[in-house]
């Protein structure tokens, strides 16, 4: 029987080190017995992950039934001349993609995000089509939505690559700068048919200066250390 020289607790005959502090057992009078019975078994049991497919299937069936009900009610009973059920069915479909699909299909978060955005855009396209706002949708809403998604994706990707906070901030600022220029261009083209750069250039100038400053800080190790020292939290 050995004691930990560091903690003073008695140890098991099979212990090669103290479980509390890691100090190895060195006892000339009672050497560690490697074949002594262990106090606990070594076999690990795996815990099954939670299976959510059952819940996902149930929800899918419920949503499909609700959609079918809407369609039947619309066609035969309430306001057959107005296609209101198309909105409802579209909304149900978007909800299904956002909430139920993740239960059925374990996809990469990026794939899920892309799919969710696609579903939302498809729904807005449906609304635009039904309300005869097609031209407005194609020329302004769709490009702006895509630009927002692209701009948001840049810092997300940088963060996912485990870059420093500085790099993520830089990429976010750069993406924001480009986005603002694109936004003004889209609005100008939609309204007047011609790109006349205005406010976005001021924003872009500020953005470029900020990114450049951060880039200098990033590339000069001494400056980086100095900034880290002054601004440490």
């Amino acid at each position, binding site marked *: 029987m050995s004691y*930990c020289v*560091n*903690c*003073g*607790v*008695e*140890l*098991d005959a099979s*212990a*090669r*080190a*103290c*479980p*509390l*502090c*890691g*100090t190895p057992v060195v006892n000339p009078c009672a050497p560690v017995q490697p074949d002594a*019975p262990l*106090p*606990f*078994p*070594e*076999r*690990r*049991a*795996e*815990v*099954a*992950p*939670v*299976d959510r497919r059952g819940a996902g299937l149930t929800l899918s069936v419920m949503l499909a039934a609700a959609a079918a009900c809407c369609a039947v009610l619309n066609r035969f009973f309430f306001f057959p001349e107005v296609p209101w059920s198309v909105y409802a069915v579209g909304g149900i479909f978007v909800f299904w993609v956002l909430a139920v699909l993740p239960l059925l299909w374990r996809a990469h978060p990026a794939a899920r995000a892309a799919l969710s955005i696609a579903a939302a855009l498809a729904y807005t396209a449906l609304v635009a089509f039904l309300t005869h706002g097609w031209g407005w949708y194609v020329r302004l809403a769709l490009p702006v939505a895509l630009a927002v998604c692209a701009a948001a994706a840049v810092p997300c990707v940088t963060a996912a690559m485990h870059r420093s906070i500085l790099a993520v901030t830089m990429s976010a600022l750069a993406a924001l700068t480009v986005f603002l220029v694109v936004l003004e261009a889209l609005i100008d083209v939609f309204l007047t048919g011609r790109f006349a750069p205005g406010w976005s250039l001021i924003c872009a100038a500020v953005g470029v200066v900020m990114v450049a400053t951060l880039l200098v800080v990033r590339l000069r190790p001494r400056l980086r250390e100095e900034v880290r020292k002054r601004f440490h939290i």
Partner: protein
Amino acid sequence: MKRKETAGAAQRGWYRLDNAALVYSAIQRSDYSAVYRFSLVLDRDIDPAALRRAAEKTMPRFPGLCVRMRRGVFWYYLDGAPGFVPEVRPDVANPCQPVRFSPGEELVRIYYYRGRMSVELFHALADGTGALVFLKTLAAQYLRETGCDVPCTDGVLDIGEPPSPEEWEDAYPRYAVSRAKRSLGGSNAYRYTGTPEPFYTLNVTMGTMPVAKLKEDAKRCGATVTEYLAAALIRTLIVVQHSERRRREKPVALVVPVNLRPFFPTKTMRNFILTVRPCIDPELGDYTFEEIVQQVHHYMRLHLTRQELAAYLTKNVALQRSPLLRFVPSPVKNLAMALGFRFVGERPYSMTLTNPGILTLPPELRAHVERAEMILGQSYSGRSNCAVLSLDGDLTVTFSGTIREPHVEREFFRFLVRRGVPVKVISNRKEDASCPIV
């Protein structure tokens, strides 16, 4: 009226969840385990075939354990599964695995490893008192199967007797008659952190010590053994928090389950517990260990009264009965409860300390039992839980959690050694894991 209803539960073949069980089942999630384990270490290796026979004969005496968890529209419920016998399995390194509520899942599990027989229970079925009765009865039957005669004394149930409905009543509503309603709250407590282990690894560190030495020192400080251990744990957490050099230190508070049976007589084996919250605020100044013991001692004596407990109990049952909550579908209710527990429920507590008390066994059984142990499952945040169980002269303190660094365990056991209590430590931690020498 209520009694008639509960007495009918066994005949009806299903049980409503009691007040504590509602919480345990609602907040169930993939990495939280409201499963606890009791073990007896015998003086000889377990014979699995005999243990299986013993389980087959013992389970029918405990109809409240032969159940499956089912989801009703408004509440979960326990559906009777007569004839259910848990499979007797070789033990595993990561005990107290979480339950999934999947069909065919066992809410009672039986394991064996060398001389140790272990029983794991989902907390919605029974509390420590009920689980210990089951373990004793099972162990007594096991010894009978191997040729020793064990009488039905010291809490061992006679498996020839029919089960009594009173043993499976929900005792909470019967005593929820206080005019006052109180709820236990408190400010956010200190929560220690560390490197999380990979899913699902449960680090168990067990210290065995003689009760006489503990009692001696506890008496010097003027407290009982539970109060003394609670104070030692609070002191440990204060020291660990202090070593983090925070600018503002948070209060250190324990959640200590209290068995309500001494206050409100009942024969039930289902849950009948409440919790109390001994607390020390290090911002008030430095406390000596003796002062912490005194604080815990007086807190317990002041607040553990029949009247105050009845007020807490009434509040909990009133929540469960409120019509607003009752008619909300169960998935919504469970989500709300899980969120509430994550953001409010566990915040006021630093750690759990449970002590189901002194285990008494019939002398014929006692002669073959070397040690009794209790392990709690993974807590909501992964920090260690602490469970205490004593058998005659020996007391076992078990820490179980999913944080790699054994800081709290080390400080706690080293402190007891310094107070003159000899401790023997065993653990299921991997030895080759790079454990820093401190």
